[in-house]
């Protein structure tokens, strides 16, 4: 029996990285969602001069800053994870995928300098529109940062056009200073801009919408909880913004961007498609459901998961994350937020029907728990499907098989000779320690938000004098 190549990496290292990235994503998502809400609320204050919108905008601007601060620090942790655990990824950044990282620096500079300016100049800048514009610039910094990082993540799943992956060991029997067998390069220097090709943009906007949906679902649930208890009209005001936005974005996510993303997977990574869709067979076989969504027919055949060798296959569990978490919970989120939106936006119409009132009460009470649950699990499902679905490769590409078999999947493997640091010693105790930190930091951010909200009234009254 021939030795099978080891393309993957040890599980503990993967778990540590996955938890770290998910934790960082949660902090970054919270920042993006809350800063967006702050500028929306400030816009509404400028339009309507309602003090509630002013207070909401100001509160969420501070909350967004807390999430940004802890998230940025956590980003450094993730970055050093790359340097220490996946050290060869650093070479790949410089060789080809540096442009989004470089542009992200400008976004980061905007965030770090403009965001404090936005937060500390409430009441100090008399022109509210000018203050709002500063907020928009700060939010732009955050979203542009996300845009660039998601461009990098997109390239890991779908190799951008013009990017060449060279296996030096196969080609020349050589490696790079004993660290990695791979180099990557663009066919032409100008191709570096292909990091932002249209497929990457689909991936990016899929991610950005998910971020807003997740954060606004959680915020909506908190306001919903308060509204059910005190029925204050201002709670309803903000719910009328949050819930319908979640519903509309979920629909766009599912029917438009999600579909485009699926087509890209179909085209660029049939093995990932097989894993996600749960097509657990060997060879070509008709799958009516996938065929319908992909081609509008019921008789198209697809290569099954077992058509590829074991060492190339992503973990089979991704189909659970894809189907149960992302698709089913995503649909349920759409149903819950959609139903609640109809009730909030057209109360005059639905108030006439007793069944509608009963349904609305059910959706209102259950949404407090189910909306954030659905949104969180759909987001986690999406992230794990995307990132584990390409495992054990990054910069994945599928090419026709000259011998007529399943498409040939190539990329840079994450294991030894690929991304993994060959000098790494990573005992279990260290992994556990890192995991504790990864979980503690988002908890710290949430605790800081809690402290801020608890201390708010006292801070409002505090005197300020100059020493």
């Amino acid at each position: 029996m021939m030795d099978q190549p080891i393309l993957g990496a040890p599980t503990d290292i993967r778990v540590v990285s996955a938890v770290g990235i998910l934790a960082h994503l949660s902090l970054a998502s919270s920042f993006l969602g809350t800063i967006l809400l702050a500028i929306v609320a400030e816009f509404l204050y400028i339009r309507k001069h309602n003090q509630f919108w002013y207070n909401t905008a100001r509160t969420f601007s501070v909350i967004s800053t807390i999430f940004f601060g802890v998230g940025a620090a956590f980003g450094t942790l993730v970055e050093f994870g790359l340097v220490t655990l996946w050290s060869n990824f650093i070479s790949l950044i410089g060789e080809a995928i540096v442009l989004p990282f470089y542009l992200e620096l400008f976004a980061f500079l905007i965030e770090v300098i403009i965001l404090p300016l936005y937060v500390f100049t409430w009441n100090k800048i008399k022109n509210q529109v000018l203050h709002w514009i500063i907020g928009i610039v700060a939010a732009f910094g955050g979203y542009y940062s996300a845009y660039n990082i998601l461009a990098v993540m997109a390239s890991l799943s779908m190799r951008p056009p013009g990017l060449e992956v060279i296996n030096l060991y196969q080609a020349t029997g050589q490696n790079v200073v004993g660290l990695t067998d791979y180099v990557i390069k663009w066919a032409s220097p100008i191709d570096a801009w292909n990091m932002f090709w249209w497929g990457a943009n689909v991936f990016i906007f899929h991610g950005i919408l998910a971020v807003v949906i997740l954060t606004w679902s959680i915020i909506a649930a908190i306001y919903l909880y308060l509204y059910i208890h005190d029925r204050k009209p201002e709670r309803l005001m903000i719910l009328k913004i949050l819930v319908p936005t979640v519903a509309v974005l979920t629909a766009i996510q599912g029917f438009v961007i999600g579909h485009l993303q699926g087509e890209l997977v179909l085209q660029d990574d049939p093995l990932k498609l097989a894993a996600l869709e749960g097509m657990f067979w060997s060879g070509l076989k008709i799958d009516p459901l996938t065929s319908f969504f992909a081609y509008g027919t019921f008789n198209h055949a697809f290569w099954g998961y077992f058509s590829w060798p074991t060492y190339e296959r992503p973990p089979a569990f991704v189909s659970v994350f894809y189907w149960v978490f992302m698709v089913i919970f995503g649909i349920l989120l759409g149903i819950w937020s959609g139903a609640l939106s109809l009730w909030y936006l057209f109360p005059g119409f639905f108030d006439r029907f007793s069944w509608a009132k009963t349904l609305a009460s059910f959706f209102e009470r259950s949404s407090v728990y189910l909306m954030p649950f659905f949104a969180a699990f759909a987001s986690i499902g999406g992230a794990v499907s995307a990132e584990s679905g390409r495992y054990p490769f990054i910069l994945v590409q599928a090419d026709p098989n000259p011998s007529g078999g399943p498409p040939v999947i190539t990329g840079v493997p994450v294991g030894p000779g690929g991304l993994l640091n060959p000098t790494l010693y990573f005992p279990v105790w260290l992994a556990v320690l890192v995991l504790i930190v990864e979980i503690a930091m988002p908890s710290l951010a949430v605790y800081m938000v809690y402290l801020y909200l608890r201390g708010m009234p006292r801070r409002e009254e505090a005197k300020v004098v100059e020493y």
Partner: protein
Amino acid sequence: MVSATDIAVGLIAWAFSVHLPLVYTVLGLGWLLPTLELIGYRRNNQVYVDLAHNMANYLITVYAIGGLFGTIITVFLAGLLPIFTNIAGALLWPVWGVAIAFGVAIALPFIGFYYRSFGRIDPMKHVVIGYGMAVALTVIPAMFRLVFAFINYPAGVEVFKDETSLVGFTLGINWSQVFLNPTYAPLFLATLFGAIAMTGILINSIFGWRYAIDKSEYRLMGYRISNWISLVFGVVYALFAGLYLYEVYLYSPTVAWSILSKPPAYLPSSLYSVYEPTMILTGVFYMDVALGIILLILIVLSFRFINRSISALKLILVLLLMTSAEVMNGLAHLPYAIVPPLSAVPKLVSNYGLQFTLQVANTLKVSTLLTPELNALVQLVSVQPGLLYGSLVIFAIFNALLLYVIYAALSWKWTPQILRVEKQ
């Protein structure tokens, strides 16, 4: 036309010259705040505690912006010197790991908790938390200075001839030797004491400037203490900086040659062509010595006079000294990214021959590690130079904005502890 090496060196030098004064201030404040607090509690003088509490506001701001520039440096290193950063990451991963664990995971909660718990817990417990914060903050330069020392003299690195490697060799590391790098301890200690001295001068300058319009005990006390800190730690810094220069002279021929303008006496003339530096930075060195002497005079004068001009001059000169000394230290090893150790030459020549030894030395040059044929950013800039020039303009704008934000933070109104306690 600007070369790829110039671009890389220029961008990295810019990021370091902004990052380092900020992290020096963080390190200095980290030790000064609990010390001031401790003195305040011992002498039962609230002004010391107020000084510590007030400056804790700046610690958070400076830490955040300093951290940002740390990220910028990492991106520049990965983007412009990918192979070097990869090698440094792979070989020295525990150093990066410990630095980040303390820099983020431990120091950040410490700073937050120290700031939040002012006046809320037992005073001496608060001081202990402050010193815990200081230790955590000190571990960061303790680790990163090892990388700088490694660049001067890669102690513990082993070279193995390997035909399968693209560069003809692979590298290993002997951890028992790494921390024994002779340039490491003096560099780290000079950094620590220099950071405290620099922070002392910055505080002294600001308090001296403010004292002209606010002749309060708070200002006067802050001014006097910080002047003593500047003097004592400035002198200690000078001693360790001198020791560092001596060790560099002994172990890092290119750096010594660049700073002192002539090759070290022990360097055989046959190796001049190998170790000749790209830049002679003696002018910068003399300027730094002159700046140090001027600062010493100004500090001594500050014991007698509280003067706005002296305060402003000290603020500018100390930043100039610190930045130019760091930039000199950072550029003196060019053309090398890692200076080949002289002691390794005979072993390599006897084991693998002269040609191989020269090949290793050549590989350690910035121009080689830059790998222009494999560097996407350098290649893109060569065909679209507007990207670089546009970036430089934007960086300049952000530098100006950054200075404004720091100014705004320093001139921010502040609620003294007494009023906060009354409020509660």
